[in-house]
């Protein structure tokens, strides 16, 4: 009998199809990939070459592949890395590093002093820290396992600067690659680290596997120091630009870690029993003035008015939503950087004194001219804080126009000194105050002040930590009196892990090799 199309047969077919689908897929929920840590990562960095790029995500990913001469433990003390030990000459100008024996690059070649010298020379040439701390320094190889660093003057932070940082790690790569490389990022990614890169599919994923011939550092793991042997075999970093997709994937068990997460998803994620919430990689949020453009903010009273008039708590709440992820801080360095503790200006921070601010603006002769505040809409914390800052500035009687751009346009606009008066800056933390980007006179709109340059010049040549601390105190005093920018506070970036991840450590950012998985 020939088949006849009827409405009933159509309904039957639909029910059958649904039943078949449920049977087919019901047993295919995500089998956790054994021995693999899967990370949903927000953005693909332009390269994994930390010598040239200042992008922080480059650092987070590169330090799984590459290693540094020294490391920092959980208390931020310098510990051995690829250098097993070192000695410092009495005058503090010569460092002699002895390399760890048996270390091999991922291409099978042994690590030698020539590789270290070539890598650090390149890092010194191109990185901000390299240029700032090691200006005039000389690197030399002595035999196969000794590296000698000669400094023109002693530097209090020479060792710390060779350890992993928030950006631009001084990583060691094979000498042939470092010598052939220019200011363009290297594409041959060969390190000595706990993971070996097996595949990088553009805009999709980075696949790494535990390096079989890995020679770990001595001692138990602490910070980036100690044993770095991963407890799992594979690491897959999936680039997932969409925030909601990262969150959904974590909830469905597809990813073990999602980073970073949207601030407004925190309360929802916190209520889930299946996930753990954490924070990493703080950033400083400042309201910057444009010193490259004549205007009201050349008058210190106008800058002081903004500093006194802003109510920072509501700005930071708009930026990072949950108090777990923001802190008020009027100091140049992060609160977590305890070696740079200063009590300067603790008492009169954040008074939110609108009347005094308005009086100061009047004294400075504000004539109602429209001021342009620029920010980027690509980063929620920057955009949201700009909205509140604009409202508060208008309450002080300023006429403020907010211009928000995508990141590339924001950077371009920032470089045009005539295009803006005020700017929301998100600056990455630095190991030493001398490297802070918003104190750099060459940074667009940066402060041009002889006293600042004098303090910074002395600071860069400080030989001991005591001298550095004294100069830091002077720098803080200058900062709070001159007000080159208004410190709003610091924010952390939220990440979450599934229950499968029992533990993972953070130093500046996530250290994936420290993850312990349930299976």
């Amino acid at each position: 009998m020939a088949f006849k199309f009827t409405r009933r047969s159509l309904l039957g077919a639909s029910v059958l199809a649904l039943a078949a689908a449920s049977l087919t897929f019901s047993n295919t929920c995500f089998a956790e990939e054994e021995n693999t840590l899967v990370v949903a990562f927000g953005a693909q960095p332009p390269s994994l070459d930390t010598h040239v790029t200042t992008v922080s995500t480059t650092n987070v990913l590169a330090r799984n592949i590459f290693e540094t001469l020294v490391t920092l433990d959980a208390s931020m003390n310098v510990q051995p890395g690829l250098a097993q030990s070192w000695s410092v000459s009495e005058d503090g100008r010569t460092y002699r590093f002895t390399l760890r024996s048996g270390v091999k690059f991922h291409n099978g070649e042994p690590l030698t002093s020539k590789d270290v010298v070539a890598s650090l020379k390149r890092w010194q040439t191109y990185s901000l820290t390299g240029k700032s701390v090691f200006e005039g320094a000389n690197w030399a190889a002595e035999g196969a396992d000794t590296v000698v660093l000669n400094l023109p003057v002693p530097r209090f932070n020479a060792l710390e600067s060779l350890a992993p940082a928030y950006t631009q790690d001084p990583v060691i790569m094979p000498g042939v690659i470092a010598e052939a490389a220019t200011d363009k990022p290297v594409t041959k990614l060969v390190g000595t680290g706990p993971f070996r890169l097996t595949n990088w599919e553009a805009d999709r994923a980075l696949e790494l596997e535990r390096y079989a011939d890995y020679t770990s550092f001595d001692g138990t793991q602490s910070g980036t120091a100690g044993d770095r042997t991963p407890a799992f075999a594979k690491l897959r970093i999936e680039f997932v630009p969409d925030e909601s997709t990262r969150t959904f994937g974590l909830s469905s068990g597809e990813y073990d870690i999602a980073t970073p997460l949207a601030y407004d998803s925190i309360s929802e994620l916190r209520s889930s029993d299946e996930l753990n919430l954490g924070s990493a990689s703080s950033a400083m949020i400042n309201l910057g003035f444009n010193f490259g453009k004549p205007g009201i903010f050349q008058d210190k009273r106008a800058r002081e008015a903004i500093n006194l008039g802003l109510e920072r708590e509501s700005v930071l709440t708009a930026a990072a939503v949950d108090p777990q992820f923001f802190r008020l801080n009027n100091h140049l360095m992060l609160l977590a950087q305890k070696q740079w503790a200063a009590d300067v200006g603790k008492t009169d921070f954040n008074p939110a004194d609108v009347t005094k601010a308005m009086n100061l603006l009047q004294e400075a002769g504000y004539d109602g001219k429209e001021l342009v505040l620029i920010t980027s809409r690509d980063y929620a914390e920057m955009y949201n804080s700009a909205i509140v800052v604009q409202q508060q500035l208008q309450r002080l009687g300023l006429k403020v126009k907010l211009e928000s751009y995508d990141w590339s346009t924001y950077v371009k606009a920032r470089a045009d000194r005539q295009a803006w008066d005020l700017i929301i800056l998100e600056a990455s933390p630095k190991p030493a105050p001398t490297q802070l980007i918003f104190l750099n006179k060459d940074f667009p709109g940066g402060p041009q002040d002889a006293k600042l340059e004098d303090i910074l010049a002395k600071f860069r040549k400080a030989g001991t930590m005591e001298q550095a601390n004294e100069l830091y105190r002077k720098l803080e005093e200058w900062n709070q009196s001159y007000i080159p920018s208004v410190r709003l506070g610091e924010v952390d970036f939220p990440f979450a892990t599934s229950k499968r991840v029992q533990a993972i450590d953070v130093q500046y950012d996530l250290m994936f090799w420290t993850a312990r998985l349930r299976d």
Partner: protein
Amino acid sequence: MFTYTLRRAGALIPVLLVVSIVVFSLGWLAPGDPARIVLGPEALEADVQKLRDSMGLNEPLWHRYLEWMSHAFRGDLGTSYFLNMPVSTAIGQHFGPTMQLAVLTIVYALVISVPLGTLAARWRGSAFDQGIAGFTLIGLTFPSFVLSLLLVIIFSVWLRWLPVAGYRDPFSDPWNGLRYLILPALSLGTIYAALITRTVRASVLDVLKSEYVDAARSRGVSENRLLFAHALRNAGLPIITMIGLSFASLLSGAVVAESIFNIPGIGSLLVNAIERRDYPVLQGVVLFLTIIYLGLNLLVDLLYGVIDPRVRLTDSVVK
């Protein structure tokens, strides 16, 4: 027909030239700096300028355009600033996922739309027909990103049947490859299913009114055969046009779905190139998509002649 095809293909050249000039100028007019993107937000201006020099970005625009064109004519679309690979390789890598998603979407849309559209025409005015009208209305008006998120919540987060996002190569891992493409195909395909269902229903209705259908019915041809073998085939031209246009737009415009489902396709390559100011990729992808779009249009025109013998393609007139 051969001469006609040649003439149409030749007409692509001026179009491509104009497109290349427009895209090149847009890249120049858009604020932003690829060297800054590569070096990061905190790099000093002096370092950025040095990299701009070595990337050739400080050359005059016309000089860069001519150089790019002369390479493009030889099939070399340049090297991506951001991805550090030839643009043609980047396009090749990203086109595979887009193509697979487009094929699956169209297959899904056809499997839904052809029977539903035909049966809606057959049972015109019935509750079934009205139900289909409702489906097409919702399918056409429901925003695809909302549908995508709904599908993800239901099938991935609640039921855990399908992955939330990502991509696996179906040629090396067919089962997983398919699973990753199902939700994006469902979310994208629903709008095309609705569109094609409407076209099928309208075209089949037209054909069913013809005298030759009455004649066939009077000869005792069964209803199913009449509907699917006679009416549907003769209603083919508008349907083919709709499929061709849908396919072309899927190959070039699945940006939202690729973004939500994290598929490394040509749409996300284009959006990323804009965000990263990766001009060689931007220019290469737009040229490539123009060729694809125009090529598919030409293919649809040629198919007319194959499907309907009354349509004759000559180099002077298309009848």
